[in-house]
């Protein structure tokens, strides 16, 4: 057996806090305890994370909680709502006991409708072309920069891409991923599809799917981390519950 000498070991031990700090800087801790555990400590900072799933599976609730917990930890967040008004979106997600309206009033959490980002891009009855998509990106980049935003949620990306020409949509996603990386802003793109063969999945640094699992007639809400760059993450399915204390997770039982 080969023993490590003290001269080798002590410098390594001294480096541990520094290494831990660096690892922390690379991960954006969501604050959702169970989720952080299964994604390897947090989302990649500046990463584009696709949260995909069928309707009613808890995607919006996850996005809102990510922003609220971030704001409570001192990270500014922005929610871009593409379907519902921001007020309506907040009523559709479960109310969180730890939500403090002050985080909205103080600007720690900003909620904007897509119209604000689209005002230059949308032409009546026409799909958005590349030029329009780039203008929208510029607008989003401006909002991220001016607001020092570190967490972004677009809820949802699906109707937005449906309003774009296919090539414009691809360029938009690519550009958005670059902006998020450059600004060290971690982004969650909520997607309405459970199919993972579209362009969003190629751009994404992380993919989390939410859905239902039927077992003997019971419908369980489940979450699975399909991909998470730079992290040793779990690939198992977990059963979730959206509660007033946030998203709770537990391993799915196999009963083998």
């Amino acid at each position: 057996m080969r023993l490590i000498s003290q001269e080798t070991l002590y410098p390594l031990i001294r480096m541990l806090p520094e290494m831990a700090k660096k690892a922390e800087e690379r991960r954006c801790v969501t604050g959702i305890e169970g989720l952080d555990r299964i994604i390897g400590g947090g989302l990649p900072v500046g990463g584009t994370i696709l949260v995909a799933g069928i309707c009613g599976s808890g995607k919006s609730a996850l996005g809102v909680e990510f922003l609220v917990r971030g704001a409570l930890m001192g990270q500014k967040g922005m929610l871009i709502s593409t379907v519902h008004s921001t007020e309506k979106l907040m009523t559709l997600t479960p109310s969180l006991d730890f939500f403090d309206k002050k985080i909205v009033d103080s600007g720690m959490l900003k909620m904007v409708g897509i119209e604000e980002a689209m005002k230059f891009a949308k032409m009546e009855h026409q799909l958005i072309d590349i030029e329009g998509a780039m203008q929208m990106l510029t607008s989003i980049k401006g909002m991220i920069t001016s607001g020092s935003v570190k967490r972004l949620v677009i809820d949802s990306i699906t109707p937005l891409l449906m309003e774009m020409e296919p090539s414009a949509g691809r360029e938009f996603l690519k550009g958005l991923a670059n902006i998020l990386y450059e600004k060290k802003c971690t982004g969650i793109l909520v997607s309405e599809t459970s199919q993972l063969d579209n362009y969003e999945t190629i751009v994404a640094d992380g993919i989390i799917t939410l859905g239902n699992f039927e077992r003997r007639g019971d419908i369980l809400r489940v979450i699975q981390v399909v991909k998470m760059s730079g992290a040793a993450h779990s690939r198992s399915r977990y059963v979730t519950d959206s509660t007033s204390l946030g998203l709770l997770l537990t391993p799915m039982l196999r009963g083998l």
Partner: protein
Amino acid sequence: MTEEAKEQVIAKMEEIGPAVGIVLNINMESYFDVLTGLVDTFSKKKGLNCIYIASSVSASTISSALTSLDINTKDVYFVDCVSYGVMESLDGGENTVYVESQTMLENIVLKVEYMFKKLDGKPSLVILDSINSMAMNNGTNILSEFVQVLMSSSSRI
């Protein structure tokens, strides 16, 4: 005889340490005495909240029974796995949460975790009443897995 069973259960409970599981094999005659002993005498003496997983009868029935025995149910929190299935009222107040079926085992674990968190992780006694009724609706393998996960998540919090 039933009072004796109650005393025996409390004495056994006193012997064991925190964060452990214990199986109580009790007969029907002693049921309410043992229940009183656990929910009232033991929990109150130890300053524990009680998280009661009701899988045989609904939480409202248990709560009424406890009230009729002059037990204050203020510190008893119910995870009701019955009411949904028998279309009973789901208005048990703040102390009760509901799981749709006894077969949704993961949801029971999550509701217990929710209760723990609601109670700020204060020491609690979790009562699963009963494992027999759970066994009628679940296979042995998944039930053992459930007990294992429930115990480890309860100890962790």
